[in-house]
């Protein structure tokens, strides 16, 4: 009985993991592909970890919580990773024109001066940015 319970989680997890990677292959543009791994991260691995905890608790009869740590790590780090990859994509492939208007601010932070200069000529730059340009 408990086995079924665990198995369900495993099947769901496997499914979402697989879908994530299918998305990686199938989706057409790089920014869209970036959405795919989030599934593997959240429900995919999350499902496996829950299954593992339940497996320990229900079948091996001992309390196991350290799986939560992996979830914690992934939940903290995955958005950062995605953010960086997105920034890299913007840096390599996008100009200010491709992106929505960042007003009230002058530009999107990740753009280089040249990329941003299209619509930010008159805008004053925040002081914190002036240093790293030198």
């Amino acid at each position, binding site marked *: 009985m408990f086995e079924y319970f665990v198995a369900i989680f495993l099947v769901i997890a496997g499914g979402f993991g697989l879908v994530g990677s299918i998305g990686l292959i199938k989706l057409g543009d790089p920014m869209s592909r970036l959405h795919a791994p989030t599934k593997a991260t959240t429900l995919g691995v999350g499902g496996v970890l829950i299954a593992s905890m339940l497996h320990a608790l229900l079948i091996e009869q001992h309390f196991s919580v350290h799986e939560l740590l992996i979830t914690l790590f992934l939940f903290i780090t995955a958005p950062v990773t995605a953010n960086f990859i997105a*920034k890299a994509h913007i840096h390599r492939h996008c100009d200010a024109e491709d992106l929505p208007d960042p007003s009230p601010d002058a530009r999107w*932070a990740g753009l280089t001066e040249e990329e941003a200069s299209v619509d930010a000529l008159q805008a004053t730059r925040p002081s*914190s940015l002036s*240093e*790293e340009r*030198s």
Partner: protein
Amino acid sequence: MSLILLAALPFLGAVFPALLIRAGRDASAGAAGMVTLIAFIGLMTNAPAVMRGEVVQAQLEWLPGLGLNANFFLDGLGLLFAGLILGIGLLIILYARYYLSREDPMGQFYCFLLLFQGAMVGIVLSDNILLLLVFWELTSLSSFLLIGYWRHLPEGRQGARMALTVTGAGGLAMIGGMLILGNIAGSYDLSVILTQKEAIQASPHYLPALVLILLGAFTKSAQFPFHFWLPHAMAAPTPVSAYLHSATMVKAGLFLMARMWPVLSGTDAWFYIVSTVGLVTMVVGAVIALFKDDLKALLAFSTVSHLGLITMLLGLATPYAAVAAVFHIINHATFKAALFMSAGIIDHETGTRDIKRLGGLRKLMPITFVIATIASLSMAGLPPLNGFISKEMMLEQVAHTHWFGPGWLMVAIAVFGSAFSAAYCFRYIGHVFLGPEREEYPSHPHDPGPGLWLSPAFLVVLVILIGLFPQTLVQDLVKVSAGAVTNGYLPEGLKLKLWHGFNLALLMSSIATVVGLLLLWAYNPLRKGWDGTPRPEAKEMFDQVIGAFTALANWITDVLHNGSITRFAAIFLLFTLGLGYIAYSGGTMAAPDRETLTASPMAIVGWVCLIVSTLCIVAFHRNRLLALVILGIVGLMISLMFNYLSAPDLALTQISVEVVTIILLLLALNFIPRETPVEGSGARQTRNIILAVGGGLGVAGLLYAILIRNPVMESISAYHLANSKTGGGGTNVVNVILVDFRGYDTFGEIIVLGIAALVIFAITESVLSGPVRARLLNRKPPEPVAGDAHPQMMVVATRMMMPIALMVATYIFFRGHNLPGGGFIAGLVAAIAVIMQYMASGFSWAAARQTWPYHGIIGSGVLIAAITGLGAWFNDMPFLTSAYTYVTIPPLHEFELATAALFDLGVFLAVVGAVLLALESLARYAWQPGMEPEHPMDINPERDDAPEDGTKQEAAT
């Protein structure tokens, strides 16, 4: 005086002239003279015994294992030569004092001269052929220094090198010969070898030994075709020429032949080789000498000729010839040294040695004229001078010798040579002293002071006296020396005498003299013919040969060591593969006996990932960033593989190391080109692929062969498994091996890490203290740089992740002894936690908040490990002996305390320090002005917006 002291005296004495030169030239020369005189007297104290036919001996153990001992003996031959060396040496020292100029470093000269003298004395006194070889080579070396004494003369440098090359080569050949001889005889002691004639001559190695030894003798004694070095050695100061190239060194070859005569002579090989070489040398030397305009060159070739004569006599191998040879050695030494000295006087006083610019000196330099004339006439073989007697004996012997071809052939050649010999002697007198006085000489010729002429005059007196009273003066000496050569066999009723009656020899001698006069009479036409005849110029040939060899050596060296490390590596690989294959194919293997595992689909997926990503890197490696990205996959797969195959510790280590390595590589990639250019020929590519495939197959094959067989013997690790818990106090056997069973390896390993960090730091300092610094400061990024250096999300995430990561590192550290983990992995995780902070807020910002110096962290890590290890000494246990105990402090449960944990702490610190120091170095390369952000993140609306109230101030750093 003991022979050992006698042999050592010149060497010990060589120090004095060099030291005393500050006290003046006289003191220096005096010291050299005193040393020589003492040695001479010491020699003479042994003379009576030798003249009685005894052999004086002295032994000193040196290298008995080899059979090389400082054994000396003095017999007649040794006495004769040692007397010549020391006696003439004394005269030369006197002569040189007045010959050398004020600019010449005289202390050095006498020092070298005494070294040479010692070497020569050593040769003639040695009772051990290895010892003889030592002295033999020493004469080559010291003569190298003496010939090159006038360093400003390129001729001197070249002559010295040529002499060293030729005699050195001969000497090395002789080493071979002597070793063979010693091995045949079973001893390197001459006194033993000299009794082994039959054994030696019966040995199949006799001929090679003979040839090699003769090579040594011939080169030293300037025998054809090795004669060419001697004239070039004349670049030396005249005292050197007089000493080395008339009286002593060139006689060393003769001495050696005489010394080995009892065992080596008596065979056809000896006869034909030695006598032929001697005869040819005699003739060739005489002919060339006639046409030389340089006085010293003339004398040099005359020396060659006379050495040939003596060699020929030794080659004839009869007792009578031996006597003639010994006698001529004495005579040649007297007249030739006198002639060299007189040539030196002429050079010294007239400023030239060129015969063409001389002539008519008879009246200007009467003393010199007398000396030179008497010596020349003796050399020409005219009575009543000593040269006449020995030359008669030579001709007498030749007349009774059957050589190649018709019986008269040798006689004819000998007469031919003697005629030329007479001719150049007459030319020396005629063209230098006789004839009309010249209007101008390079300087004003006059007789020198007695300091210069006393020595040759003394020799000339000897020339006359020996000629007149040979029996009284030298007969005993000649007998005892010749007896030593022939092992006691002397011609019956031997008497040295001036007048032999009218015989064939006298006739030949007369013919030679007359022809000699005729040759001089017809000198000008002859000279024209000679100058018109093309001849091989030995010096040029030698230069060409040496030049060719040097060029060849250059070429070989350059071609082999062309600086191409890729080629060196390819050779390394090829050689390894080849030898590995040879080793493998020469052995046998049992049938596979291990039950193999089945690869699960999971393993196959891993395998595919590993192989594909590896191949991708090979294919895409020119895009360097891409290669690094894919390298991450390889590392990940290997880590998974370790996990899959029961090695959790390795999995953890692999993944941590992988991350740090990639970070290092990325940091470095920032400075170098992002692409690898396409270059290299197709052949090169093919070579690389072949080697790669070969290496891959080799390793795969070897590993597969291992994996499908069980170990032949039980591994020592059974002990580790059994004792890990009880002896080491831990259940993670890998960790217990690392910190306990093989803690010493780990100790070395953390030191490697520490050194790596030090090296990285030191090299960074070196580079930054050079011109590179300015370039780095003005460096422009190769690609456009995105904004937002320190993104907010990353900074905030790190604020959580870094403490957690340090927590995890602590956890990994403490569990290591019992479960997968340990100091190394913990160190890496901790370092990565700090790297996370660097990546978030930048190195400068983060490092400004870092208080512990990395050097100190590394140092303390190593020290903690070392001190933990040393702690065992206080228990009287060996280094790194561990201890552990279980402690209970209420209300806590029992926990373990182990020195292994302390050791692991050292590992931890060393790892953290090393990684961070390396990163710091890279960060210093990247540092540019203005790269010190004030804030941890670039964008922070809370900070930058106008504050709504005063509380939201960022805490000061």
